[in-house]
């Protein structure tokens, strides 16, 4: 019975435009869209600048080895030499020759420093100045090393080598671990909203519920079939979202280009993640179905469900605030716990006690809601619609025994 109902509901869902959009297309398209926008914005700001060479003019009084050092640099520098010039003629020369930077000696002696002329109002000139600065810093260090080495007897090199103990992966996991769990929770829950209004409220509105109820369907089979169908759509949204996330991070410009964001979700955590998605989908959607069941029609159901959704996902957002720990206490806060749980999974440090608390508490909520739903959604309630009196009678005993 359960399977027959489940199959029918899923068939209906997959033919519904709205459900397809929210449960399948949006979860998949979200990341490519987000990352594409971010990528575009980044290119707009820095990308074009990064690709352009800096045009540098070097006056003939600049030391030769410094010029050589500039020419050897990996940075995209276009170096041209110009004759000695007065300070006052640098500015017109810069404009005339379409240069970004001019380098010259401030005086005639060897001790006089090198001057870099640039135009702070031009992005390109600023970037050229920064490039020169970094090359000249390297040049200075090289010079320093040479002189130190010549002083030290054995020519021992003294150099500083940066070794960052935080691996690139763990750094990016930390960054994305804050944002992604929230998105997964929101998308999973959102994937079930439309179906959860569809299965009871819309059926009552379209008068198909009674058709089913006068057939020899068992009420438990019917409700379970409907719940599982909704949860399936919600879980599908969550899974598609995670897959889209992993693929986007792995294969897009965003994932590839910015090295310190190279990111992968540890595949070993996927089963746990799936359990989390199933539980959050079951709990949240059981609640949604119950709330929607009180509405007369789709519009009314939406007006009931939307605020609950908007408030309900706030705890997931809270979990995105860095510094909130995943411990035995936070594991008891619904929704926040699942967000924190996903965060720990993505960051690759599974903490078992809060994990078990999170999953158990979700399971308990789920069972409570399903039991409640089973009691509330009886045959007569499904036909006539739910009224305040019915909740009362379930919670405080049936005062109108005869009438029910």
């Amino acid at each position: 019975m359960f399977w027959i109902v489940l199959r029918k509901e899923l068939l209906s869902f997959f033919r519904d435009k709205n459900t397809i959009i929210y449960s399948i297309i949006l979860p998949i398209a979200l990341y490519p869209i987000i990352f594409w926008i971010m990528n575009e914005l980044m290119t707009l700001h820095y990308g074009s600048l990064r690709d352009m060479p800096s045009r540098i003019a070097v006056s003939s009084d600049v030391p030769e080895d410094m010029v050589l050092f500039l020419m050897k640099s990996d940075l995209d520098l276009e170096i041209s030499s110009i004759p000695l010039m007065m300070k006052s003629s640098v500015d017109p020369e810069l404009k005339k020759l379409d240069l970004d930077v001019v380098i010259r000696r401030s005086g005639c002696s060897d001790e006089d420093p090198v001057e870099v002329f640039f135009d702070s109002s031009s992005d390109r000139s600023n970037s050229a100045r920064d490039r020169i600065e970094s090359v000249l810093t390297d040049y200075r260090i090289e010079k320093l090393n040479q002189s130190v080495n010549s002083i030290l007897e054995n020519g021992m090199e003294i150099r500083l080598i940066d070794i960052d103990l935080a691996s690139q992966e763990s750094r990016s996991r930390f960054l994305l671990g804050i944002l992604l769990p929230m998105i997964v929770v929101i998308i999973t829950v959102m994937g079930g909203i439309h179906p959860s209004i569809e299965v009871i409220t819309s059926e009552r509105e379209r008068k198909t519920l009674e058709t089913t109820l006068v057939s020899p369907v068992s009420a438990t089979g019917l409700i379970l079939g409907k719940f599982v169908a909704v949860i399936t759509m919600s879980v599908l949204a969550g899974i598609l979202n995670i897959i889209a996330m992993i693929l986007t991070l792995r294969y897009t410009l965003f994932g590839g280009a910015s090295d310190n964001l190279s990111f992968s979700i540890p595949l070993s955590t996927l089963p746990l993640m799936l359990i989390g998605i199933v539980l959050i989908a079951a709990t949240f959607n059981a609640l949604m179905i119950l709330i929607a069941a009180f509405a007369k029609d789709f519009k009314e159901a939406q007006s009931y469900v939307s605020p609950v959704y908007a408030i309900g996902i706030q705890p997931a957002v809270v979990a995105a605030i860095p510094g909130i720990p995943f411990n035995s206490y936070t594991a008891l806060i619904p929704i926040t716990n699942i967000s924190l749980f996903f965060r720990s999974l993505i960051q690759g440090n599974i903490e078992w006690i809060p994990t078990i608390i999170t999953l158990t508490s979700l399971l308990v909520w789920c069972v409570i809601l399903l039991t409640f739903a089973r009691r509330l959604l009886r045959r007569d309630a499904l036909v006539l619609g739910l009224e305040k009196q019915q909740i009362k009678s379930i919670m405080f005993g049936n005062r109108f025994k005869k009438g029910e």
Partner: protein
Amino acid sequence: MIRVNNLSRIFFDSQRGEIKAVDSLSFTCQAGEIMGLLGPNGAGKTTTLRILATLLSPSGGTAELNGFDVIKEPDKVRASLGFLSSTTGLYPRLTPEEILKFFGEINGMKGAGLKSRIDALIAEFNISDYARVRCEKLSSGMKQKVSIARALIQDPPVLIFDEPTVGLDVIAAAQTMKAILEYKKRGKCILYSTHIMSEVEKLCDRIAIIHKGTLQAIGTMEELREQTGERYLEDIFFSLMGTGTTFAENGS
């Protein structure tokens, strides 16, 4: 086949208080018979039929369908019943074929048996042209044919129709009544509720007139004529209502 005994149903309404929608109603209906339930809006027809279909529980009395008690054996009651009303719609995104398959499976049918039953119904009701078109695209006449086929899928011995012609055009309404008469000939026990007198005169072997949840009179046209001394059903009806001309809505 259908045996209703002292059936009552009370609703509680926050504004109207206690409503006796059905009040000590008793009647029977045999195989091969069409029993008409005639009454104005709010008479309690739908409530009675919903109790028979196990959608509502009675506040008092008993009802039996095909030998099964509606409270004690609701599953067997539903398995013996084909129910069609203006509130039994069709899933908009499924095709007639899929709908027949779904309800066949719900009734425990499967495989070749179900397939041949579906084909037979599609042929009988001329559905084949649109058997694979989603119901949301069908006209109300087409939908009605599918709905009747849907109610007949497991070939139930009892059929209940609750104002089945509401919202239909004349042709679809006439086709519906023709199908009902055909199934009476095949020996079904049929309960037909309506407030339209001409339908009752055309279809029904016996008529139960109800008002405010209570039975006013029951019998064949002849018996009702004798009881009231009126010739036409309309006059019989009004004389039983005791109002003369207007319908008084229950509880208002």
